[in-house]
């Protein structure tokens, strides 16, 4: 493993970063697979992110995946993402197998620090794939989403029904022939019977015996942090089973990505993990930059890192306060929001926005830093640590908090990896893995910081990791302030959007250039790329497919909260209702991030 890693790092150019790390390590994996399965036709595909990608027939899918999951050295234990794509109107698909639809399996091996992507072409009458829930339990929701969004059947799936759309929805939204605007769908009318239909859709029918009670938590409940519904089966106050029901926050962010230009999609990313601010912009612009081959100037990279870390702190502060509130502590949430307010003042001064600044641009950031930013940031860096020490006494060292959280909602490292759990929740299991260290992007390799971990993977550990992450983020920000390079804040490359102001309106050519760049936006060359990043919630990436157009052909958003929430039943079975609330708080999900 160490060998492949160092070889990969040696061959990596700075801009390609993690992707190149993938290439070095895993071109090998495809060759390995070809040797292992001589009868299977692996059609390799070049992608801009360097993740080895191959198309295989649907019959070979399960054996190959099973081999990858447990047969190879450094097995691919995590199903990082599973998504569909409508291939029917894609123009640039030379050398790829004929397909109406395709299904993408994106796997990750932590042992190898490498990813691999397998695609299955689907055509003709039989648009379905076999289930992989037997290999990765986390495939359950992904396959339901596949069915929901594309109408691609999943043979052998234990519970194949819609997940994000309501059960009475007609059509499959991410198919290219499904309208993407309400105005294309005709006038909406509510026939008298439909409200009954909606009611029925919400009915729960879990297996019951005389001693169990079904308790419906949500979609509106103060403990759930957003519209999610959890159907609990209780025996006394013990949780026998919990079934999360999601989709109440679904806004079609992936569909919108096929409509907005590359540039005008940025504000939509802000709202996916709505506590993350520019942490959402970052994976998106990084993926677009990979597709466009844009080099980001050093100053822009450091500004991005600084803003991203500020937002990580902001997100963790909200988490910290609301988690304490879930435990019934009334006060901490006011303190952390007060701190966040000071942080927002900095965000406001720099970006002009607060929660959703939409401030990153393809090739850099929107504007240069304003005069006086340095003092504001430095003041905050001095202000927060004493406050954090106070919260330690108020929350982390409180005996009641410990009694409520230590050993509650435990998950071990192996299960967490199987379930696709990432980010602080994975680190809480004692696994030192942080994309900022392992696959540095946006120049994170230039900063010194530690990866905090906890031992038991319980609620207390998940909180402790995040609290320590706030301190590490402060460290990174201090380095950003100390070492802020000079230079441009945005790339001069033609595909960087929007075009620079100082190069416009000189003559008719620059006028037209600017006009097209603003009204249409850049035409990104065909290709596919993802750039996973470490957001405040976990591993977060935008898998973008360009068909050589002004909009994305397919925008797949891999969010961390989706698999995290999916693991909820595992965490809370056998515990009590108050523990459920503590667990919900501790896994730090955001419904916008789950439902997109």
């Amino acid at each position, binding site marked *: 493993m160490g060998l492949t890693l160092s070889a990969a790092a040696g061959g990596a150019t700075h801009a390609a970063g993690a992707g190149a790390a993938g290439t070095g390590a895993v071109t090998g994996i495809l060759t390995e697979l070809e040797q292992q399965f001589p009868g299977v036709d692996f059609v390799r595909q070049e992608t801009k992110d360097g993740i080895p990608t191959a198309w295989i027939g649907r019959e070979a899918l399960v054996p190959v995946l099973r081999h990858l999951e447990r047969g190879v050295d450094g097995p691919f234990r995590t199903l990082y993402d599973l998504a569909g794509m409508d291939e029917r109107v894609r123009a640039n698909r030379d050398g790829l197998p004929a397909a109406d639809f395709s299904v993408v399996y994106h796997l990750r091996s932590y042992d190898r620090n490498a990813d691999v992507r397998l695609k299955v072409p689907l055509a003709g009458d039989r648009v379905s794939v076999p289930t992989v829930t037997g290999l990765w339990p986390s495939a359950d929701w992904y396959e339901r989403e596949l069915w929901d969004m594309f109408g691609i059947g999943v043979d052998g799936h234990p519970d194949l029904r819609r997940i994000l759309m309501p059960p009475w929805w007609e059509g499959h939204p991410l198919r290219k022939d499904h309208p993407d605007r309400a105005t294309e769908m005709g006038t909406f009318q509510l026939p008298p019977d439909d409200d009954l239909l909606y009611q029925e859709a919400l009915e729960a029918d879990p297996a019951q015996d005389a001693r169990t*009670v079904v*308790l*419906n938590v949500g979609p509106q*409940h*103060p*403990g759930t942090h957003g519209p999610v519904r959890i159907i609990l089966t209780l025996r006394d*106050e013990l949780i026998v089973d919990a079934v999360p029901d999601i989709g109440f926050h679904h806004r079609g962010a992936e569909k919108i990505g096929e409509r907005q230009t590359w540039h005008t999609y940025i504000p939509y990313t802000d709202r996916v993990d709505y506590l993350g601010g520019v942490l959402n912009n970052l994976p998106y612009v990084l993926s677009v930059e990979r597709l466009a081959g844009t080099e980001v100037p050093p100053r822009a990279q450091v500004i991005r890192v600084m803003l991203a870390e500020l937002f990580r702190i902001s997100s963790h502060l909200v988490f910290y306060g609301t988690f*304490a*509130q*879930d*435990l*019934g*502590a*009334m*006060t901490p949430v*006011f*303190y952390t929001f*007060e701190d966040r307010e000071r942080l927002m003042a900095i965000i406001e001064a720099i970006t002009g926005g607060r929660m959703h600044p939409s401030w990153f641009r393809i090739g850099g950031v929107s504007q240069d830093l304003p005069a006086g930013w340095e003092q504001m940031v430095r003041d905050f860096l001095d202000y927060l640590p004493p406050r954090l020490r106070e919260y330690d006494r*108020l*929350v982390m060292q*409180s005996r*009641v*908090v410990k*009694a*409520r959280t230590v050993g509650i909602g435990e998950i071990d490292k192996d299960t967490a990896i199987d379930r696709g759990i990432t980010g602080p929740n994975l680190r809480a299991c004692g696994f030192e893995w942080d994309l900022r260290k392992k696959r540095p992007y946006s120049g994170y390799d230039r900063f010194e910081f530690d990866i905090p971990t906890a031992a038991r993977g319980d609620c207390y550990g998940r909180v402790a990791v995040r609290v320590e992450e706030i301190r590490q983020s402060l460290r990174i920000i201090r380095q950003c302030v100390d070492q802020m390079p000079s230079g441009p804040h945005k790339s001069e490359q033609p595909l960087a959007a929007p075009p620079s102001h100082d190069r416009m309106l000189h003559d008719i050519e620059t006028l037209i250039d600017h006009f097209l760049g603003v009204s249409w936006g850049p035409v990104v060359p065909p290709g596919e790329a993802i750039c996973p990043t470490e957001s405040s919630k976990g591993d977060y990436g935008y898998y973008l497919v360009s068909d050589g157009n002004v909009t994305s052909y397919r925008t797949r958003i891999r969010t961390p909260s989706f698999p995290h929430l999916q693991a909820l039943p595992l965490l809370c079975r056998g515990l*009590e*209702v*108050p*523990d*459920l*609330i503590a667990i919900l708080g501790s896994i730090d999900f955001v419904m916008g991030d789950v439902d997109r």
Partner: protein
Amino acid sequence: MPDTAWHIIEVVVMLLLPLLMAGGLTVVERRLLGQLQDRYGPNRVGVMGEMQVLADAVKLLGKEDWIPPFADRPVFVAAPAIILMSVLASFAVIPLTSGFAVADLNVGLLFFLAMSSLGVYSVALAGWSSRSKYPLLGGLRAAAQLLGYEVFMGMSLLGVVMMAGSFDLSTIVEGQRGLWYVGPQFVGFVVFFIAGLAETRRTPFDLPEAESELVAGYHAEYSAMKFGIFYVGEYLGITLVSALMTVLFFGGWLGPILPGWTWFLLKTSILILVVIVVRAALPRVRYDQLMSFGWKVMLPLTLINLLVTAAVILAT
């Protein structure tokens, strides 16, 4: 005749004073919590927000008094009334100052304990009669919690009773002329304070309403003034427990220079503020932790306190 008039004055004072204090407490609590939490609290109505009580009362009276069609109507209506009556009745035995109590019972303390037991019915019945799951869970928690904590709440006071040799609250106060009982009966005081928090369903023992888990617990289905009465009941409960702690452990009306009733009110107010500060500082415990804490820690502690007190009294 003057005797009757005096009695009427006593009744009116002991009825209005707790109600006024409970009303004022709604504002004081919110203002104080605000100060503790880096914010203002209600400060718009009146000069410093003190008229917020009136605004709230007007608002609650103006709301639709909705009774869910699935609820058990008579019980649902009776539940809030029970809490108000049982707490107000308890105030009858509290001596405001020397000789000033509505009922100078020689079993005053037992009367208080009896009345506070009645309060359980209110919460349990409110949760039960709502015929809805969250209130039911809240009501069940309340019943178990209040009954469990009542046991050693009463026991924790027996040390004081032994030292004073009486259940009569006035006699107990008179017995503290030399030394407040909070000194020799410190364990009893701590236990009673904790039990008092549990009896009034205050943080960290606010499990019956637990807003982040059970939404509002036993009073989730209540609206308008019925909902308001539960709140008044809670604040009356805090006032009552604080007043009782003043009488039992802090020498009641005893104090130099100022008239007795000012001392009484001053001590009671300070204890109330302590209860509020506890709310700002602590998270909520879990139900099973609460129960095991009660039965496995508090009860043995009380019994030991009782034995030691008895031994000391016998020895001297």
